[in-house]
């Protein structure tokens, strides 16, 4: 791809991305969304977060990693427990990373 074509492609990609982001924010207060759509949007955070987390924890190198070898799943389960009990993001992060590092280090001895 030539330099000019590359820059044009990047500008086009940027426009597409911006329009996706701007779409409903721009129309807010002008266009009232239908009630069923507003109800559906309540579930966006839970559905999207889980759809990001679960593949990141269960899949690596395009293969499903199952316990007990999957340290990430164990670490995430522990971190999830901390998140549930404390609602503390930093503590969740510390426990999850410490668990992953600890389990990976222990792995050397088995």
């Amino acid at each position: 791809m030539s330099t000019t074509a590359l820059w044009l492609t990047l500008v086009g990609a940027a426009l597409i991305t911006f329009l996706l982001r701007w779409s409903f924010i721009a129309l807010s207060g002008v266009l009232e969304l239908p009630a069923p759509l507003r109800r559906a949007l309540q579930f966006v955070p839970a559905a999207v977060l889980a759809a990001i987390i679960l593949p990141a924890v269960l899949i690596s190198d395009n293969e499903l990693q199952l316990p007990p070898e999957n340290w990430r799943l164990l670490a995430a389960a522990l971190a999830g427990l901390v998140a549930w009990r404390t609602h503390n993001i930093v503590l969740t992060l510390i426990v999850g990373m410490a668990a992953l590092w600890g389990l990976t280090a222990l792995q050397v001895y088995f």
Partner: protein
Amino acid sequence: MHEQGRNSLWRDFTAGTTAVVPVLLGVVPYALIAGVIAIQVGLTPVQASGMSLLLFAGASQFAAMQLINNGAPALVILVTVLFVNLRMAMYSASIAPHFATTRQTTRALISYLLTDQAYMFSLYGFEQLAPARSRVAYYLGLALPIWLVWQLGTMTGAVLGTELPAGWALDFTLPLIFLALLVPSIRDRATLAAAIVGGCVAVAAQPLPWNLGLIAGALAGIGAGMLCSAPAQHATDS
């Protein structure tokens, strides 16, 4: 503007910045890797930074760089970016009511800065913020540092071309942060169903191209949530 008002807006801004600090830890390695890969696929450091400035959307930048490396035509790159970033329209619709009275120029800035992290974190923080101006300040307080770290990170990665030690597993920080946000977003049976179905469908649909696994998971999760919260379902309870 009253001095009092300005002070309280600044407080909202810094509250957003404080909340987003752990996220930045996860953004740094992604940004560095994005810069490193840009050089590997033959972009110059200026083009790498230009891409981060123009798109400011990690997953789609990785996809675009993969395609540039494969010599894909521009149209394929544009369609891929469209699909990978489709979820942004969902975020836009979901967050839009919070900015119904905000000026259009500010809304354009808010839109440009909309990322997975900015969306999830601002919704989490908005629950305690009533006036629209407070929400804008809080949002900018957390979205601008993400933007800055992404720009500096990709620039650094492109210039240095270094790799992060894989043993640190810093890429694991982002799923952990999202997990900490997921837990409080589960309030009842319907949101629990949305999360379980969304996660499982995303895993099953992961081989799909263009990040469509995420979209499939999100739509299935939303559908499950709606089914579980349907008025008819409640009537049959008890």
